[in-house]
């Protein structure tokens, strides 16, 4: 579709970022490009980034919202480090993001927004368009706003409303640059604004205007094509972490033959799980927006006692509030899935940023010896698997399970090979029915599950609660030996799960110089950097833990096969502490607590340092 004067170049991998004011629709633009990329057939990974919850003043640095996307014809694991293209809708966006653009990278700016006022808000004394700011970059200046206004001239619409389509112009321009067709976005616009035809017209027009404008840009002599990636055979969709998590829950409920009960209270970045589930009511899913997090988890525990697959989700501060109730769930040995979509802490912290700093809280944030199963998804689509497995463990072992997601995984997206329901493992749930043999605190061999005797079952009337329980009967019991025994029992109940999960197996050689051990959302950065190091000939392997409590049975053995262990974490060394304490291995941490994921380069440099040093 490019004209005669332009050439097309093939690339293996590209990283682009849309950045603008919170009001500029950058998240939508990014998502559209992502969907288009997914349908086109590239592998991809995304990183949305937006200001803390509330709207910052227009044009201010605090108000910048961005969406980053890496796409490739090969398997990729991260949204990319340095940018090939930055779209900056205003000076603030330029200011915040320009440093991430690689040398000679392309930056497109909407000159219409480079007003004195905006420049000042962004802290520019002199307009960057007028000094040497872009000496090392390829600057493309476009008055997008004006071009859109002209294109929409004939529409009966306020200028302000017209300007709202400017993001579609930018999207169109990028479609052109990467040789895409626009159908996916035209379809989307048409569906989304079905009731407002004039908005459809405006947006589609702006989109096409941007696309066709590309050809007129003198400065761009080349467009790019990133060929399709080779995926395993299957049907794919693009999916975000929170969405995948919700689907994993629904799937588990279906596979277990149970109703799903969700009790929770909105909090960034976990709220979307509630929003998704609330839309699945025809699956019999009950969503209960409680008065606070405590009521959220308590309602879930109550629902669990009464026989539903019960779930609650929150983020750090909300999980802190649930600590007391989680102790009760541990004591009463009821199935429960608790999701923590981690964000920057401590306290209110950085609500929209990502972090892995709630691992300690998950492990230890309750009174008494109160062990809890902890699992963590590694990527957006992995949320499906991990939530499904969390439900399976909770139900089959009669135990609460904590899932540690994070803002990066939850809001990021990637292509996902869609599983079929038939292929998912069955979840075996047996509710007790027989009054003869019934003992509320008898425990099955292997799973160490106690019977699930739900109210409504004749003859199984019994009482549970938070006071120490007598083994077998479950009656309140103050005997010292029983208490000691039950504490060991609760620990054993968690430990026994190690017999039901796969052994650890590193990516790369089974022994060598360095093992990079990770968990959760750092998977992509670690895997990319390990691959890079392997390619550079270093003896480095990657082990990524899904199961953090209990660890895989052979973890100690695996660790012992490497001379050194590196644990990159978005915290000050929480998994490190656990590993060091348990295995007395001198694991080194790579620790960053900046509200941002690792870049591949950061991890790579540390790997180099360790294999060399």
């Amino acid at each position, binding site marked *: 579709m490019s004209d005669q004067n332009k050439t097309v170049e093939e690339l293996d991998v590209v990283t682009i970022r849309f950045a603008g004011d919170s009001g500029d629709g950058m998240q939508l633009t990014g998502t559209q490009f992502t*969907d288009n990329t*997914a*349908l086109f*057939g590239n592998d991809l990974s995304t990183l949305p980034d937006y200001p803390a919850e509330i709207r910052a003043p227009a044009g201010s640095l605090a108000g910048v919202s961005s969406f980053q996307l890496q796409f490739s014809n090969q398997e990729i694991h991260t949204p990319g480090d340095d940018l090939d293209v930055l779209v900056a809708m205003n000076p603030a966006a330029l200011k915040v993001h320009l440093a991430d653009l690689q040398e000679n990278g392309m930056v497109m700016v909407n000159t219409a927004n480079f007003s004195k006022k905006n420049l000042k808000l962004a802290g520019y004394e002199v307009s960057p368009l007028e000094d040497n700011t872009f000496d090392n970059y390829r600057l493309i200046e476009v008055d997008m706003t004006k071009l859109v206004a002209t294109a929409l001239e004939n529409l009966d619409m306020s200028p302000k409303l017209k300007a709202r389509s400017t993001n579609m112009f930018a999207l169109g321009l990028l479609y052109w640059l990467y040789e895409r067709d626009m159908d*996916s976005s035209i379809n989307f616009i048409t569906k989304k604004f079905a009731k407002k035809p004039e908005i459809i017209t405006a947006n589609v027009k702006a989109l096409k205007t941007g696309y066709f404008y590309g050809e007129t840009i003198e400065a761009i002599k080349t467009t790019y094509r990133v060929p399709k990636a080779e995926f*395993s055979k*299957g*049907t*794919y*969709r*693009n999916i975000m972490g929170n969405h995948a998590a919700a689907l994993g829950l*629904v*799937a588990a409920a*279906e596979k277990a033959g149970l109703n799903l*009960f969700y*009790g929770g209270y909105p909090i960034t970045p976990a709220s979307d799980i509630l929003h998704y589930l609330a839309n*699945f*009511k*025809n*699956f*019999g899913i*009950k969503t*209960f927006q*409680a*008065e606070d997090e*405590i*009521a959220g988890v*308590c*309602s*879930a*525990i*109550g*629902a*669990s*006692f*009464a026989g*539903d697959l*019960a779930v609650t989700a929150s983020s750090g501060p909300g999980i802190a509030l649930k600590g*007391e*109730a989680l*102790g*009760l769930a541990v004591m009463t040995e009821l199935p429960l899935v608790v999701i923590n979509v981690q964000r920057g802490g401590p306290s209110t912290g950085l609500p929209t940023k990502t972090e892995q700093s709630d691992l300690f809280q998950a492990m230890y944030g309750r009174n008494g010896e109160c062990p809890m199963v902890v699992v963590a998804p590694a990527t957006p689509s992995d949320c499906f698997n991990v939530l499904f497995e969390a439900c399976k463990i909770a139900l089959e072992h009669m135990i609460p399970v904590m899932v540690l997601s994070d803002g990066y995984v939850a809001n990021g997206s990637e292509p996902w090979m*869609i*599983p*079929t*329901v038939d292929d998912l493992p069955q979840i075996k749930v047996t509710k007790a029915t027989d009054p003869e043999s019934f003992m509320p605190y008898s425990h099955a061999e292997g799973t160490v599950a106690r019977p699930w005797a739900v*109210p*409504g079952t*004749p*003859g*199984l*009337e*019994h*009482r*549970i*609660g*938070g*006071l120490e329980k007598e083994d077998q009967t479950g*009656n*309140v019991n103050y005997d010292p030996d029983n208490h000691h025994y039950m504490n060991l029992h609760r620990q054993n109940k968690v430990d026994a799960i190690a017999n039901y999960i796969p052994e650890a197996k590193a990516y790369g050689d089974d022994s060598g110089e360095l093992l990079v051990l990770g968990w959760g959302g750092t998977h992509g950065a670690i895997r990319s950097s390990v691959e890079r190091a392997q390619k550079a000939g270093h003896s480095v392997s990657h082990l990524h833990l899904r199961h953090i409590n209990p660890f895989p049975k052979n973890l100690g053995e695996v660790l012992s096969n490497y001379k050194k262990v590196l644990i990159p974490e978005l915290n000050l060394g929480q998994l490190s502490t656990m590993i060091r304490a348990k295995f007395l291995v001198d694991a080194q941490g790579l620790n960053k607590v900046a509200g941002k994921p690792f870049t591949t380069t950061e991890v790579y440099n540390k790997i180099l340092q360790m294999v060399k040093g």
Partner: protein
Amino acid sequence: MAEVLETTLTRKDFVSDQEVRWCPGCGDYAILAAVQKVFPELGVKKENFLIVSGIGCSSRFPYYMDTYGFHSIHGRAPAFASGAKLANPDLSVWIVTGDGDGMSIGGNHLIHVLRRNLDLNILMFNNRIYGLTKGQYSPTSELGKVTKSTPMGSLDHPFNPPSLALGSGATFVARTIDRELKHMASIIKESHSHKGGSFVEIYQNCNIFNDGAFADMTEKETKMETQLILEQGQPMIFGKDKDKGIVLIGSQLTVLQLSEDRNVDDVLVHNSGDKNMARLLAGMTYNGDLPTPIGVLYKEERATYDEMMTAQLQSAIDSKGPGDLDALIKGSNTWTV
């Protein structure tokens, strides 16, 4: 709602095998007896009862009842009960709580469960003290209360539980007294028959840490003057000689000494459906010379949260069809390799 029962249950069916561990003389015994008496008469299958409590002397209640029971954590019983009721709307769910459990740490859950109008029953044992922790004042203790934690007297004005319940939007608000066995039984029954959240305040004597808190309302010598027994459709009269009545003058409820001129016909007739009147009656609690009302202050039929949820799930199926998991997982934008 629980279906009607075939077999006949008796009091004994509801006595558990656990030793009752309240202090001798505690008012909780009478309440336990009343509940064990009433439950067999409710037409609910034994296995469909669930009693949820928090923490406190009162909250040990479930252990003594041979039903399903959950002795949860302090103050949160309404939340557990809500989850259980929504998981299984067939259950007859009862919350047993204290003035500390229900109105101090648990105040928020209480007001929310009441506004939501889940179909469950709350029995709040009000002894105006923290019993289990050995005698600190509670949010219903009178101002100036001398306790372990307030040796010079407490500084906070107590809650009036029915006023708070009404202020929360409760659809059933009643009060009874541990010493009035019959009255208590009838109120418990009526709370059960109310479809919606029922709040029952039970004045309960803690003979160890707050003995005689309601003596004026329970002792023979005074109770006729201090109790105003509300009965639907009946005039609000009280007094040893049934010679006093309640009248509304402007916005004020006032005691009328009955005489030939002004007799029972001048007295207010209790209508538990009158929310405004309920608001005023609740205000009569330990209020100057006015008697304190017991009985059903207020009762309103309003759709319950649980039935609305059931209906919503059904209507989702009706409009979208039953969930198709494969389709849901697939979504609308896919590509195939």
